[in-house]
Every structure is written in structure tokens, then in C-alpha cells.
């Protein structure tokens, strides 16, 4: 673990203080923080940071709501539940790259099914993957489809820890089924929801394969994520020093976000059930 997680961070810190690109014959040469100054002035990096954040915020938000509905449904007892559970897990189990391309076909203009439907409804072409204002929503949709089952699983696990007695007692006291949701289920589920938010925020902030395959960062760079920019810098521009800088900066920004989320949740009192 130290090798896989610790070493890269040290190496990045060192690399980010050096120029190591084709210009220097791929040999690291110290450049006294020039990478970091370049980063601060790099509009593309900041655009990617904004894009990555809005992508993460929207997809995690949607996923939590959807997953909650799914988990409540899958927690009830009915015939065939096991199979439906397994089937609803599938999007999460399939490789991201694989379904990213599937989505690219679905969003395709003019042959994809969505575009065909819009056509027969008499709408103008949607151009889902070539409109810089809308394409990021397509990536959100693909991400929500793909990772909601993961949160559903987490929440399902949480629901199973709530004893049935609580609900019977609540009904005896004259509570309505609908009220049980806000009085029992949600408060007791909160820790699981928080862990879901935390996990998914971290993952969404590092989004790479999905966007790489679905849009390649386009159109006009409007869906490019930080991880992708770092990848481009290293593998296409062969600028390893700057790539390391981008990754380190991405990591710092992410830590800040996670920290802020944790603090905000603490302030809003959502963490209280954890302590009791």
C-alpha cells in the first residue's frame, strides 16, 4: 500500500518542482516552481476543475436520490426480488469503458435511438454529444446509470441493519407508514448516505474512463476532467513535470472539497445520528 499510494505522491511532489518534458530530453531539471505558476495561470486547468466539480455535484446528488428510491424498493419482500436485485446491479458491474461506448451509440447523432425519437417527435436534432452546453449532462446521465447501483447496495446494506421491531413499535404508537420514512428510516440511514456521498464524490472527482471514451473531453473541451488533463499532459504532450503538478493540484482541491463537505454536514447536524 505504501508503494502504490505513498510513493506516487512523493514522486509527484518532486516532479512538480521540475521540468521534465521533451524539451529537456525527458530528464527532470529543477525549475523552481515554474510548474505551479503555470498552473495558476492555466485557464484550461481551472475550466476542468469547474467542469469536474459540477459533474461530481450533479451526478452524486442524482445518484443518492435515485439510489434511495431503489434501495427502498429492493428492501421490501416480494417474489423475484433476488433476480431483480442482481439485474439492477449489472450496470455497476460492467466495465465503464464498455458501457461508455454503448452510451455514445445511444447519444449518437443522427442514428442513436434518442435522436431518432426526437426526430419522429418532430424536434430539431439534439446533438447530444456535440453541443458544448449540453454534452456534460449526457456524461452525468451515463455516470448516474452506471454508479447508482453501488450506492443502492450501500443503502440496502443500511436498511437491513434497521430492526423490523422499530417499525412495528411505530405502528403501534399510531404512526403512519409514510411518516416512518422520515421518523425512522432516513435518520438511521444517514451514516450510510454520508458514506455513499463521500465515496462517490471522491470517485466522481477522479472521473476518467467514462469521459475519455464517451466524449474524449469534447466538444471544445467542455467535458474534460482534471484526471484527463493530467493524462493528456503526460501521455500526449509528454510533459511529466506539469502532469504531476496537475494531479497534485487535483488531489489538493479534492481534499478541500471532501473536507468542506464533511464540515458542512457536521454543521447542518446530519452527522448527529453517528454519535448516538
Amino acid at each position, binding site marked *: *500500500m505504501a508503494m*502504490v*499510494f505513498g*510513493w*506516487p*505522491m512523493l*514522486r*509527484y511532489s518532486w516532479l512538480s518542482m521540475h521540468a521534465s518534458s521533451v524539451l529537456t530530453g525527458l530528464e527532470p531539471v529543477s525549475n523552481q516552481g515554474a510548474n505551479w505558476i503555470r498552473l495558476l495561470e492555466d485557464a484550461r486547468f481551472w475550466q476542468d476543475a469547474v467542469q469536474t466539480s459540477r459533474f461530481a455535484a450533479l451526478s452524486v446528488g442524482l445518484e443518492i436520490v435515485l439510489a434511495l428510491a*431503489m434501495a427502498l*424498493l*429492493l428492501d*421490501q419482500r*416480494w417474489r423475484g426480488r*433476488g*433476480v*431483480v436485485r442482481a*439485474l*439492477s*446491479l*449489472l*450496470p455497476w*458491474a*460492467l*466495465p*465503464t*469503458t*464498455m*458501457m461508455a*461506448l*454503448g452510451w*455514445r*451509440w445511444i447519444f449518437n447523432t443522427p*442514428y442513436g435511438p434518442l435522436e*431518432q425519437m426526437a426526430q419522429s417527435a418532430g424536434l430539431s436534432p439534439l446533438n447530444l454529444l456535440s453541443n458544448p452546453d449540453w454534452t456534460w449532462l449526457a456524461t452525468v446521465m451515463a455516470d448516474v446509470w452506471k454508479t447508482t*447501483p453501488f450506492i443502492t*447496495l*450501500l443503502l*440496502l*446494506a443500511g436498511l*437491513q441493519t434497521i430492526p423490523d421491531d422499530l417499525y412495528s413499535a411505530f405502528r403501534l404508537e399510531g404512526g403512519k*407508514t409514510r411518516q416512518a420514512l422520515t421518523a425512522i428510516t432516513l435518520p438511521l440511514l444517514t*451514516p450510510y448516505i454520508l*458514506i455513499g456521498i463521500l*465515496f462517490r464524490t*471522491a*470517485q466522481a*472527482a*477522479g472521473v476518467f*474512463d467514462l469521459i*475519455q471514451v464517451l466524449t474524449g473531453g469534447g466538444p471544445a473541451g467542455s467535458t474534460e476532467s482534471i*484526471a484527463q488533463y*493530467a*493524462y493528456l499532459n*503526460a501521455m500526449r504532450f509528454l510533459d511529466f513535470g506539469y*502532469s*504531476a503538478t496537475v*494531479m497534485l493540484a*487535483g488531489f489538493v482541491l*479534492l481534499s478541500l472539497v*471532501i473536507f468542506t463537505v464533511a464540515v458542512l454536514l457536521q454543521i447542518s447536524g446530519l452527522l448527529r445520528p453517528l454519535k448516538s
Partner: protein
Amino acid sequence: MNRSRPLWIALLLIWSLLPMLWQLITSFTSSDALVNADIPFQQRWTLAHYRELLSGDPPFWRYLFNSSLVGGLSTLLTLLLAVPAAYGIARMAPASRRTIRTVVGAAALFPYVLLFLALLELAREFQMGNNLLAIALPYAGLALPLALLLLISAFEGLPNELDDAARLEGLGVVDRLRWVLMPLIAPATASTGILVFLFAWNEYPIALTWLSRDDLLTLPVAMARIAGSSIYAVPYGAYAAATVLGSLPLLALVLLCQRQIVAGLTNGAVKG
């Protein structure tokens, strides 16, 4: 909610399965029919995409084999490391356990994509590129945090008395782990193994940078390469066929192991 339940179930299934069904349909549709809606219904269907895939060079099953090999190996390696480690950690004092939990949890949260560059340098340094056995090493390293979290919880669920009794019987630590505790945490081990396998099977950025020889690609990289072969005309039919073939093993795995996957997450990750 009871009366409308079938509706919700149907919605859930449509949402989860429709994109995949579309791939299935596409995979049997001839390339002409994909771009021409006017071709009559009877003439739209073909097996050409599957034939093309299976007779390609290298044939498609090669990627399935590569991914299975890497997945199996990573899973084995992760469990070999994580089971004894989790046992050791679970028997520590509560304070140090909490510290380790926090560190391991943070590592599990870490978006590992950011690590690919340094890992690639290591691969170059130690000549580990283009080697399916070697790529299991970073996979095991990356999967370790989650595996540890799940297994520590599993071990903590076992009473200490069990361990003590076995010790009084004169069993050493290895025997205790192997003959007394392992059988008891077998379910947790199984579900951890499945999650690790899924991770290794689906991993993309590291496989992309470590493997470049055609016959060594894992499934996700091979798929992305089909996509990238031309920006203008992605061979969607062939691609959809690949998706279908590539999904079958996972479909089987998930259907068979649904219970373990759910149970694994129930017992583990969320306790810390």
C-alpha cells in the same frame, strides 16, 4: 406503495437494462441497417458482427482470457495479503485499530486515477510493462484498502474466546487462522474476492498505460481501442457484439453471487 409496486419494479428494470438491450439489438443489426432506417425489418438482422469478432486477430476470447487471468490473480494476491493482515489488525488495541481504519479508509477513498503516472514510471523501472502477471501487483495494491476494511470488520465479528480456546489447544497462529477462523469468515472472504475481481476486471487507466501489445490487452482497453480506431466511424455493430460477449461472464457472476455481494457490503465497508 404496495399497489404501485409492479410499476416501480418495471421502471427500475427498464432503467437498468434498456441501454444493454439496445446493445444486444445493435449487435444483431447489420451495419447498413444501423444507418438506414428504411431497410425492411426482415433484412436488418445479421450474425456478421459476431463472426468478425471471433475471427479477428487476436480473436476476441483472447481479451476475455486476459481479463480473467488478471482478475483471478489480483483477487488471489489481494486475499493472500489482506486476510492475515486483517486478522492481525482486528486483534490490536481499539485505539490503534481506529487509526489504521482511518488511514485505510482514506486510501480506499483515494481516486486512484491520479496515481497512474508514478505507477507507469515504476513499471518502466522494473520492466513490468506488457506483462499480465505483473499488472496484478498494482491491482492488488489498489484493492487492498477496500479488502482490508471488509475483512477487518469480519474478523471483529468473531469472538476472541474462539481464538483463546484454539490457543489452549496448542494451535499456532497460522493453524488457528487456517483451521478455526478462515472457515468462519469464508462468506466475507468470498464477497471481498468478488469485489476485487470486479475492480480488476474493469480497471482502465493502468491497463491502458501498462499494456500495449495487441494480444495482451484486457477487455476494457481492447474495447476502448475498438472505439478509438477511428474518430469518424466507430464500428458500433461489432462493438455492441463485443459488449454482449464481454458482459456474459459478468452477468453470470452477478446472478450467481448477488447474495454475497450484498452481504459483503452489509457487513463491512460501512462500519467504520
